[in-house]
């Protein structure tokens, strides 16, 4: 994940990139950052309890703050000035989530105010997707070494996958995030494409076991 942050920081016009994992219960944590300085800025949000990354997580939408000097006054009276003291003038946060299954957020920092160009935005979303897939992989314990090619990305736009997620959550009495991890783990273990597994769950040809 740190490699991903460094790669993003280099590829994007950004001074730093950070990824934080959050949950509705428990404390949020910065899992990775492109450099120690960005890690400090990332942590700042949790110390102060406010910031773009927290808002992105809560709203499910990206939070674009192209000029912290402006945003600071109204949106984040604590975080804004503090981030600026660390040399951050613009921050962009992208939620890492699939519908209501929320994992965290990816933050992009810049030392100059200004919006992301459309090209940069597409790259940022691609890095956010990669971070999302990376977090899901890290949270499942079963044989990560094999079968990876059979599984395309977690964000393949197939409604059956999201419906299956909801069905498994109710069936096993678990949250949507865990449900997603379980479906992915099953697909890995069986070396089957995620979409096929989802189709089988929706058609009730397959029911995941209570405990793997």
């Amino acid at each position, binding site marked *: 994940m740190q490699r991903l942050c460094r790669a993003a920081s280099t590829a994007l016009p950004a001074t730093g990139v950070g990824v934080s994992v959050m949950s509705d219960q428990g404390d949020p944590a910065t899992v990775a950052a492109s450099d120690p300085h960005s890690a400090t800025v990332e942590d700042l949000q949790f110390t102060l309890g406010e910031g773009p990354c927290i808002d992105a997580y809560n709203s*499910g939408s*990206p939070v674009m703050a192209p000029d912290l000097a402006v945003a600071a006054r109204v949106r984040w009276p604590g975080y804004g000035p503090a981030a600026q003291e660390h040399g951050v003038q613009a921050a962009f946060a992208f939620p890492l989530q699939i519908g*209501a299954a929320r994992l965290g957020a990816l933050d992009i920092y810049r030392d100059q105010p200004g919006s992301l160009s459309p090209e940069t935005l597409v790259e940022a979303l691609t890095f956010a997707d990669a971070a999302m897939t990376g977090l899901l992989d890290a949270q499942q314990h079963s044989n990560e070494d094999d079968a990876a090619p059979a599984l395309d990305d977690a964000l393949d736009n197939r409604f059956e996958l999201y419906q299956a997620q909801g069905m498994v959550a109710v069936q096993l009495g678990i949250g949507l995030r865990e449900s997603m991890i379980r479906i992915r783990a099953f697909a890995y273990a069986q070396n089957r494409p995620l979409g096929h597994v989802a189709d089988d769950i929706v058609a009730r040809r397959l029911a995941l076991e209570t405990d793997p």
Partner: protein
Amino acid sequence: MIAAERLAQVFVELADTLTDDFDLIEFLQLLATHTSDLFDARAAGLLLADQRGRLQVMAASDERAELLELFQVQAHEGPCQDCFTHGEAVVNADLTQAHHRWPTFAPRAVAAGYRSVHAFPLRLRKQTYGALNLFGTDTGQMAPADTKIVQALADIATIGMLQQRAIQRGDDLTEQLQGALNTRIVIEQAKGMIAQTHAITPDQAFNMLRDYCRRNGLPLTDVANRVITAPASLGELMTPA
């Protein structure tokens, strides 16, 4: 030709939703349903392009899996893809003659029982944001006057989308669009949860969800969120029979 009175009603109802608590998904849903009713189309759907330029299904006049699939496939190929790429309407396409034009899409659409298809761009000035898609079960031609009306409905969709929170910057549109795409996923997850609770299909689950919203005058997005976060507050909707 469409009754002017009925049409006026639809425009008023749509304009009515452009308020502070505007919900993009709800609005697109309403538009898809009305478009389908007005034109005796068998189905209508709205697709929006995400930031990567991939078309995503946002709303449909009905949520049968095979229909959703027909919208989804157009992220790669089909009338909506053409319409989005060129910024121009695709009108009166005969699906039985379209196997060369759309080798994946056309046979599936025919197999689902459709014979004609139309796609109208969601466009403002030079930018195209998505497409309004209509399917018919016969190959009858849509009258030129009617195509103008459908385009007007598509224009309303664009205005509705761009007016929310007075979008002035590209950044605002990014926030809204990505948020709406995620909401669409939440609705699918809620459908799955309802389906499992009542041992029904996701299609039937969507009908239950929509009926619940109508009976209680609640927006789809809110109820879908509550299915996930507070199912106990939804009474029979989330109680197994």
